[in-house]
């Protein structure tokens, strides 16, 4: 199946889902606002800390804010466009994956479109605004290349985030009736990457750069944008990490799918 056909099908399924959600979800605004509010609170918290300690390990307020916001933004993209990964547990346990397996459409694609987390819009907006603010407030020498690379890093960040979500949720194929506990834990580890990895012991640094490469969502892009010498060059691995994460996640998903047993009725 060609890439353009996959995009087309994704769009078709997504829009149908959106229509259904707009029709049934009356708490749309509440969800969105509560998500936005949570992020603003986190931001205020950071601000309060930096009011007292203006520099953490050589990182300024707006620089950490950028990392913080990258985590929101990718989370927002994840819930807005790939929320379905979080439904995988239900799809597997209720045997609803049967329906997807009967259609000539990649199963992953159908899983992605299973739900839309409208609250992601809140994360996306606040994340976007804060990133923009942090870029404005940190005297950056802009060039065309820098803009292109920033966009590229945003893209790889989203890919890494979604891949980890998919891989984590694929646990549903092994852990039956377990709810979301495992993928949620994996997801929450992203909080580590809201801060400079230099704060953490070596083991944690390696962990969030390799096994769950959350650092490539926030920290390594920040080292590039804000020109942190000592880390120069590492960000270039982001596309490799993104491709690797995507491949690994897809592999885990496919392997899990081969374990899928449907249900007895």
């Amino acid at each position, binding site marked *: 199946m060609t890439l353009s056909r996959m995009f087309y*099908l994704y769009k078709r399924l997504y829009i149908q889902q959106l229509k259904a*959600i707009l029709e049934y979800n009356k708490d749309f605004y509440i969800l969105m606002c509560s998500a936005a509010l949570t992020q603003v609170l986190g931001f205020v918290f950071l601000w309060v800390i930096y009011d007292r300690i203006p520099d953490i390990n050589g990182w300024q307020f707006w620089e950490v804010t950028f990392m913080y916001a990258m985590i929101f933004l990718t989370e927002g993209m994840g819930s807005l466009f790939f929320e379905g990964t979080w439904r995988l547990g239900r799809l597997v346990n209720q*045997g609803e*994956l*049967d329906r997807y*397996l009967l*259609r*000539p*459409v990649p199963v992953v694609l159908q899983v992605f479109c299973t739900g839309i987390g409208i609250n992601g819009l809140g994360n996306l907006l606040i994340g976007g605004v804060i990133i923009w603010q942090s870029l404005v407030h940190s005297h950056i020498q802009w060039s065309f290349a820098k803009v292109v690379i920033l966009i590229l890093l945003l893209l790889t960040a989203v890919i890494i985030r979604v891949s980890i979500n998919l891989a984590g949720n694929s646990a549903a194929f092994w852990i*039956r009736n377990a709810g979301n506990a495992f993928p949620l834990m994996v997801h929450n580890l992203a909080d580590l990457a809201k801060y400079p990895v230099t704060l953490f012991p070596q083991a944690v640094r390696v962990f969030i750069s390799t096994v769950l490469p959350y650092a490539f969502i926030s920290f390594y892009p920040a080292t590039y944008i804000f020109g942190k010498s000592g880390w120069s060059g590492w960000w270039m691995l982001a596309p490799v990490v993104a491709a690797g994460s995507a491949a690994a996640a897809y592999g885990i998903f496919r392997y899990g799918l081969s374990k899928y047993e449907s249900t007895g009725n």
Partner: protein
Amino acid sequence: MSIIEARGLSKSFMQAVKEPGLAGAVKHLFIPKHIEKIAVQPLNLSVEAGETVAYVGPNGAGKSTTIKMLTGILMPSAGSISVNGINPYKKRMENAAQIGAVFGQRTQLWWDIPIVESFSLLKDIYQIPEPVYKANLDQFTELLGMNEFIHLSARKLSLGQRMRADLAAALLHNPPILYLDEPTIGLDVSVKQKIREFIKKINQEQQTTVMLTTHDLGDIEDLCKRLIIIDHGSIIYDGSLSEVKSRFARNRVIFFQVGVPMPELYNLLSQTPGMKLDRQNEQEFSVSFDRYEYTASEVVSRVMKHGEVIDFRMEDANIEQVIKAVYDGNLDLNQKGE
């Protein structure tokens, strides 16, 4: 080569064994115990293009599991399948494009989307050419009487409406193969009839190969020429339906209505071996008999000797009793007929 071909196909599931109660659940957490449940024993199956096959068996026999392997939902534990030359598990998408499937227990439709929109989504998914889509949509809407509910979302439909929509959805892309797993479960007589007529028509007009599981033997008699019976995961009969009927539906029943009661006949009949009398009232009764021992005319002439018969009718061989006897283990269809 047959359109559906399975060799040594089997499937087993790991089923968790938990002792009852909280203690059992905790114990299972630390020392999980599983047993291997063999749902389908290695079996061979060939279905020719255009055939209508009934795949029946008691609850838990392995029917749905077989269908799920044939459709590519489940990976077989062992054995090979070829559907139109395609391995349904390895080439899932290619296979999906050439089959239609209805699982009566569960809808394939989008829950929150109006049926027409689901259909148009399917049109894009299966890349159905516009003229084909339009013709099919019009024809199906008409034949299945879907006009009254086609604008509602699946969640609002009654069971019978939903089943009709599901059937139409499975056939929009003119698949050469159609799998139906209990397509008439829980439906009223008239909707059942509609669905059967529809399937028959599709089979006749497009030579669609139909494989159907059901507990409604009316479906079988109406639709299927071939009968496959599976029990405890093994196929115990595979052959033509009419043969089963002629060989094993041995019991015939004749209903009589007579002018005056005939006590001595009643006495005589109830003492005749191989005949069974069942009296509805003074002037109406039925005689069931083994048609290998007596002919219908023998029975009728015997009754007429005793008095005036106003009316009589004969009931056709009944597949239901045969199947029931097989399920109960009282009949082996593979035994040689007398």
